[in-house]
């Protein structure tokens, strides 16, 4: 709660308090997904094109989500919701597919097995991200005094 100045239409800042740890972990996951993706693309793309393309897509989404959590403003707030929802959808769909149709995913992605290879962080993180975004949602100006007391960091 040190550096934020209240900016009315954009809602409360997303990069204060615990939100900073969230951003750091998102950044870490973005790095992990990018690293894996770079390796897979360099290594042998033809071996598992679906899984490898998905790794690359996941990496991009994590990077955008990290930026959206840091950047202020209503537009980025929406981008954060979209990317984080996409991640939750991705980890659930790919998690299920990797169990029921392992042939489609012979190689690992960050989302395989519900993110088991990454300590289930990819599964837990979108949920925490959504809770955080909800608690930082933009509100009408009339509600601002109430909001000031409810967001002690």
């Amino acid at each position, binding site marked *: 709660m*040190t550096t934020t100045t209240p900016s009315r239409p954009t809602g409360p800042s997303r990069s204060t*308090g*615990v939100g*900073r*740890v969230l951003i*750091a*972990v998102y950044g*870490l996951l973005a*790095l*992990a997904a990018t*690293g*894996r993706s*770079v*390796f897979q693309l*360099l*290594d042998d793309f033809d071996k598992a094109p679906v899984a490898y393309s998905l790794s690359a897509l996941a990496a991009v989404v994590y990077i955008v989500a990290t930026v959206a959590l840091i950047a202020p403003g209503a537009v980025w707030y929406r981008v954060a919701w979209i990317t984080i929802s996409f991640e939750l959808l991705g980890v659930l769909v790919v998690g299920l597919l990797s169990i029921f149709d392992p042939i489609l995913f012979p190689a690992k992605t960050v989302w395989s097995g519900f993110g088991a290879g990454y*300590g289930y962080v990819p599964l837990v993180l979108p949920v925490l991200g959504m809770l955080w975004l909800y608690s930082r949602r933009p509100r009408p100006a009339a509600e601002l005094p109430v909001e000031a007391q409810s967001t002690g960091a």
Partner: protein
Amino acid sequence: MIEWFAYAQIAVALAAGLLAVALGLIGRRPADLTMGATALVGVLLVVQIVISLLAPAFGNTATGSALEFWVYLVSAVLLPPLAIVWGLVDRTRWSTVVLGVASLAVAVMVYRMYQIWFVQVA
């Protein structure tokens, strides 16, 4: 990679990580202790780079993919400096937690590197 050095590295990174997360959660700002521990984790990674560059010349080669190993190592070595810069810029308790998260991630990554080097047979 040298087996005992990898173990030592994982132990130091785990200890540094748990210490920083705990101190951060009880409200400590980044201090010499937590920053120093993270810096130590970073220095050990640089040593690991030197070891892993030289090891193949002595017949100690990775059993798994060397490319994957280096992607992990290069990513890992970025983490401590980034976390330390974060800690210098953002002087709150949460930076201490971030320092810890970085060290814990390094511990996991070194463990993966260990597996690629010694366990995987590709």
